[in-house]
């Protein structure tokens, strides 16, 4: 059985050395100091780790300068279809009833979130019967199909969210939970489609 307050000779464990003279050494104070120093070391390690982790929150990155749609922007074909080249101005007559077309504001085509889906929901002159919505799905930010699906709805290729163009792009299927924000349309002096204001609402997922 071990006697309390003895030391063991490390080279010869069978020999118990006499206990050291403690004198007026305060064991209580010693253990408090030791505990304090241990905690200081732990806090030091933590501070060291935080000093590397926290600056990550201050990181910034170069951003691409991008402009949104503004009033008066001429709307152009986003890609070559309907017998027209990408980048040429869209006339109301380019969109037959029950079909959709994707357009960009002229000169701002490098900003994907400017993509707009124009749909003719009824026959009419000028912008009558035409509606336009942001083409960026409110679920996870994919661009919706330009072509309407069989039910006449705007559909997203990613997770099959569906929006009803005739009913303020209300969600009629899939996981999206917000309608596509609308874009007010107007006619330019040469009879081509223009935006008569910015997109009315947050674009894409919030």
């Amino acid at each position, binding site marked *: 059985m071990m006697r309390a307050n003895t030391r063991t000779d490390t080279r010869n464990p069978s020999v118990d050395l006499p206990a050291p003279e403690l004198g007026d050494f305060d064991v209580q104070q010693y253990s408090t100091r030791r505990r304090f120093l241990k905690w200081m070391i732990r806090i030091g390690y933590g501070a060291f780790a935080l000093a590397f982790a926290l600056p990550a929150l201050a990181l910034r*990155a170069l951003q691409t300068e991008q402009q949104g749609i503004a009033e008066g922007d001429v709307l152009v074909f986003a*890609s070559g279809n309907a017998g027209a080249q990408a980048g040429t101005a869209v006339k109301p007559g380019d969109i037959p009833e029950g079909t959709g077309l994707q357009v960009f504001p002229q000169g701002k085509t490098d900003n994907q979130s400017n993509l707009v889906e124009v749909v003719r929901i009824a026959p009419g002159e000028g912008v009558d019967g035409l509606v336009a919505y942001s083409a960026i799905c409110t*679920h996870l930010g*994919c661009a919706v199909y330009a072509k309407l699906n069989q039910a006449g709805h705007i559909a997203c290729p990613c997770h099959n969210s569906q929006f009803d163009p005739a009913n303020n792009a209300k969600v009629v299927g899939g996981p999206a*939970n917000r309608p596509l924000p609308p874009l007010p349309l107007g006619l330019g002096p040469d009879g081509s489609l223009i935006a008569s204001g910015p997109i009315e609402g947050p674009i894409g997922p*919030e």
Partner: protein
Amino acid sequence: MQRIVRDDVIVDRGDGRTARLGLPTRVDPRTATPVVPERPVTPKRKGWLEERLGVSGFYSKYGRKAFPVHTTFFLGEMATFSFFILVVTGIYLGLIYIPSNVEIDVEGERLPQAYASVRLIESIPVANLFRNVHHWAAHLMVASTLLHSLRIFFFGNYRKPRELNWLFGVGLLSLTLLASFLGYALPYDAYAVTATGIGYSIARSIPWAGNVVAELFFGGAFPTLGSLPRLYTLHVFVVPAMTAALIGIHLLLIIKNKHTQPGYARKLAEPGRVLGVPFWPYQTLLAVQLLMLMFGGLFILSALVPIHPLEAYGPPGPETPDVKPDWYLLWVYGFLKMIPSGAVLSTPIGTIGPEFLGGLLFPGLIFGLMALAPWLDSTNRPSVKRYEYLEPPRQAPVRLAIGVFMLAYVGMLFFAAYYDEVGLTLAQMWYLSIVIPGALATAALLWAKWAGPDAEQRFDPTAEEMPDEEVPAAH
């Protein structure tokens, strides 16, 4: 005449000549007598490394570690070697690749620099081969890590004393998936931009911390100038460094805890001792063979089946291509499709929407359940013995049923990625995703109860002494 196989004895052959035994010398043991060696035997001089580093101590500590030889025990090695192949091929690709989405003119086309640099990689035959190997090896790494974890799960080897290594293993599986996802963005074709854009939106949907996380990983509103340097650094440095560190800890813990073993080892070696071949040289030989096989297989596969060539999707344009993620993320995609739009919950720290539920919370729950398996398993309590052998799955019906349910559920999530294309409604899909895994799990449970051994014949997977075998009485 008898051949003697010892070679350390020199004998007098009885005809006036001596011979060293063990050489193909025929010696008659009746006439042969050992003689004093002609030369005094000097101790062999220590090798150069031995004198400086004492490598024999290292050998006796680690080189003698026993490795059980069993087909499924190579799955973890396959995952490690896939990682090695990914690093080697990745270094080659990194020497050419430019992580920038700035558009430049290349042969009359406006292309993002990243896309143009990957096209350059494709135009150099050997670099293109390495790119394909890199892509295939990524699939192999995910698959072998997954199969490795399934083997551990179904045979109950996540239990004492290997709970910590199970946790590190789940961490490695998560890191593998994360690295794969981060790699999606780099070619910067239409597919890459779509997939990464979805990832960005999912990151943004995290309540409260979403913007900070999205900013950290994507460097701003994806796609922006800062995105590719972020994703590239994470893909080629941060995540691989963490993976390498975790693989190191994983292996050290295997040395510490020793391997689990197939049940037959219990009959051949005493309980608690590992039956297998030593790390050096036999396991090393097997491992190098495996590595060579994998290299060969991956290069042949890559030469014959190019994977994800750039022309398949082309540079990013205004349209979103009709894409689905690779198989190992398809189940998350299935979740995203299955969460209905009404699943919105407003909490004080932010809105929880279907994107967060399907993209992070439910997949995270599956990983969380997996990580907690050692603590959810009622056979694994602090007082129990150490589990050192593979437990036959039919002996543990509940674990088998839970495993089958989870596997079948993930399988149904794969199917959910296509549910609208086969004409099912969302409600039917939800119904099927519960009923089919439930039916399969019940079948597995009933089978295990029916086929399971009775109490006396159960195999004890712990390292306790086996009951004494009955010795037939001698007459």
